[in-house]
């Protein structure tokens, strides 16, 4: 058996002008390298009137940077055998470079260009704006995305970073100009509070030296802090969006949840796995799909972020079946807190979650995701190594209590989007 400890641990390194370096060894035998910049650049930081700017900037930093315009950058990546990707979330913006391990120093150079020296060429801005507008329209008219949008708007109050999807609105999108993007970039991509997570074979000291060369020029002040207003009980408990002509109704049931740093997170994680997170073993999959035959997909998600979170139980079903599905989703969420989980069920889901760890180490990019998640939440360097012990410490009563805190049906909102009438 391979010793999996290597990529299950990582090391926090020094800070380079406000950019904290984190290093993770790659899985044995890996030939690739991954590095991710994570900055306080999520759409929760969108200034009022410029909603959508964070996602536009996130898209454009991977488009053209430094001496490379868009085509030149793409060709450069092709020649190196690399990819540059990005991800935006309410709290953070990420940029990831992936490619051959032998090219890791040059790959870090590309990442630093993307993060520190994006070009924001006018033609790129115009294209990104058109694409964002189309995504806005699609978000409103596709049942699955519309249901999520409506759920978040029902759960979180105005001004809350988790309330929106970050696409902005037609007015704000039309108003955002290059100047707004440069300003957002300056504040959120090159100031403190950011991480550089590297999964590669070089040692931490070497990685720091190379990172220092490429990422010099950060503003060492502390990074921007997200304003997070308190969340009260939702004003409405049910939202119905009729989208005639569609074939399927998307059902979402959800509410606020706990942050990732919450002491009950491991128990809440398992509660969600039981509800619908561990698809084929989960209660929603078994009841709605396997026993009821009512839906192709039935699952749940627990989104635990830095300042809070939300949970969702979801299914897509026919226009004549959604009532039954809503009842089942609600009953299964309530069952988590009303009845104690049999020890054998808990053991099954727990050992399944623990057994899954090797699958997260199949490749450098898989392992890298573990390090990015742990480092973003400031978790200990051996967090993933100790994760099995944390899960094994959860008892049935712990789970029930965590479910009442993190998956609370009493304040849940139900959203239907699709051909409901």
């Amino acid at each position, binding site marked *: 058996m391979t010793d999996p400890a290597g990529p299950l641990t990582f090391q926090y390194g020094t800070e380079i002008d406000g950019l904290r370096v984190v290093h993770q060894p790659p899985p044995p035998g890996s030939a690739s390298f991954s590095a991710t910049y994570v900055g306080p650049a999520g759409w929760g930081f969108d200034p009022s009137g410029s909603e959508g700017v964070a996602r536009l900037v996130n898209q454009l930093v991977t488009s053209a940077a430094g001496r490379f315009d868009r085509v030149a950058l793409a060709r450069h990546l092709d020649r190196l055998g690399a990819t540059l990707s990005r991800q935006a979330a309410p709290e953070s913006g990420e940029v990831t470079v992936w490619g051959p391990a032998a090219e890791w120093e040059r790959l870090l150079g590309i990442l630093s260009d993307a993060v520190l020296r994006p070009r924001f060429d006018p033609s790129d801005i115009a294209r990104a704006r058109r694409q964002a507008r189309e995504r806005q329209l699609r978000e409103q008219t596709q049942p699955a995305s519309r249901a999520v949008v409506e759920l978040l708007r029902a759960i979180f109050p105005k001004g809350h970073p988790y309330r929106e999807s970050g696409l902005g609105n037609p007015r704000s999108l039309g108003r955002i100009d290059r100047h707004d993007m440069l300003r957002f970039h300056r504040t959120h991509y090159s100031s403190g509070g950011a991480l550089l997570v590297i999964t590669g074979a070089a040692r931490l000291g070497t990685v720091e030296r190379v990172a220092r060369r490429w990422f010099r020029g950060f503003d060492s002040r502390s990074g921007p802090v997200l304003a997070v207003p308190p969340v009260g009980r939702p004003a409405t408990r049910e939202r119905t969006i009729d*989208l005639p002509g569609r074939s399927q109704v998307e059902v979402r049931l959800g509410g606020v949840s706990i942050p990732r740093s919450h002491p009950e997170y491991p128990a809440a994680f398992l509660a969600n796995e039981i509800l619908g997170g561990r698809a084929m073993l989960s209660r929603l999959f078994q009841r709605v799909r396997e026993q009821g035959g009512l839906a192709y997909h039935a699952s749940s998600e627990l989104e635990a972020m830095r300042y809070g979170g939300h949970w969702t139980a979801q299914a897509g079903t026919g226009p004549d079946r959604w009532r039954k599905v809503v009842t089942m989703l609600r009953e299964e969420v309530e069952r988590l807190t009303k009845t104690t989980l049999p020890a054998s069920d808990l053991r099954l889901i727990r*050992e399944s979650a623990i057994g899954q760890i090797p699958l997260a180490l199949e490749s450098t990019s898989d392992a890298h995701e573990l390090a990015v998640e742990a480092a973003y939440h400031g978790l200990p360097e051996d967090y993933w190594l100790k994760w099995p012990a944390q899960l094994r410490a959860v008892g049935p009563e712990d789970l029930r209590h965590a479910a009442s805190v993190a998956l609370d049906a009493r304040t849940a909102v139900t959203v239907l989007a*699709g051909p409901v009438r």
Partner: protein
Amino acid sequence: MPRDGVRQPPHRTFELPNGLRVVLAPIPHSPTASVWVWYRVGSKNERPGITGASHWVEHMLFEGSPRYGKGEIDRAIVRVGGELNAFTDTDFTAYFSTVPREHLSVPLDIESDRMTRALIADEEVERERTIIHSEREGNENWPEFRVEEELYQLAFRIHPYRWDALGHREDIARMTPAELREYYHRFYGTRNATLVVAGGFEIDAIRAEVTERFSPLPATGEDVAVREVEPPGRGERRAELSGPGTTPYIQIGWRSPALGDRATPATMVLDTLLGGETRMFSAGAGWWRSAEHPSARLYRALVDTGLAVRATSEFRPKFFPSLFTVQALATPGVGLDRLEREIERTVASVARRGPTRSEVEEVRTRIRRGAALAYEGASRTGFRLGYFSVLRSPAYEGELYRAILRVTPQAVREQARALFTDDGKVTVRYTPTGKENDD
């Protein structure tokens, strides 16, 4: 530049007396093992009235076999931390499980049990019927699915490629359990299957285990050849669809060569030139995908100019001649006529003048990139070795790769001329019926 060439891990292939082909690829450091069973059975083997049978069988193979009752297959894999799933294509169906390496025997036992002895009980078929309806309804929510389904129905009148692997709604509603069992027993068996095992194991031990588990299975599985031949297309066929949504969408298809055709490598270069990537050799850490590329011809002509927000091509070589497609999603406010004219102009320009030498060199670089790190991890290894095995053999990947790198600009131009003709061309346009709830 990464080292040139397809870098398959060392693997051993052999065939059991019952016809089962086996590929074993040990990856010494891998913490996981991945088991794939590829059947050369897909929607091409169905007939009108039972369209969607392969996909339905795919579902039923999770619903019970002699040693695994309903739900027990899922439970057996997931309880050890593994993941499992399956997918159905026109040409094949694949089932896979990836588990921590010490649990490799679990998926091997499951696959040997359900390869020829799935129960497909009446009551389970009935219960699955609504789930499959639901899966189809979920897809129908997307205009792109509706357009593509229509495109293939227009393109093919004889050949079974004319229906989607999900099957027609009416057939899903009507098909009987007996028909499904008959289909399964006819085609699913050792003679039509390839077993691929990749990951952390000792090859002799696993060879012995595979032989012990799968050798007792009877040699079954009827010939999966398809005898229907689609006659050459005459003229263009078109369809206009409308429905919910906000953005017009267009997909155009031209008759494309089959796998193994001499024109396939040049068509893959053409696909990369126009669309940005070709599926079998696309870059990235994940599964393959059709991705856009800013230097691709369609991207430059449609996205850079503001006519479309997305524009790609797709060519996936199949057992029989199929379609080379171009698809574009209009920028809000742009009409489909303009979009279609620009697509026509773009493909005609390749047919008239061909690509430049530097464009073809750029495509080669992209193909090299796509091949370079494609085999990281047991799951991806099992997928790729299995995919090329079911198409032909694992060695076929290298043959195809080398052939692609030999393609000249002249060959691309000739292939574009042969491909982009009106005979057999199909066009489907989707016009949204209105503005819905756009805040």
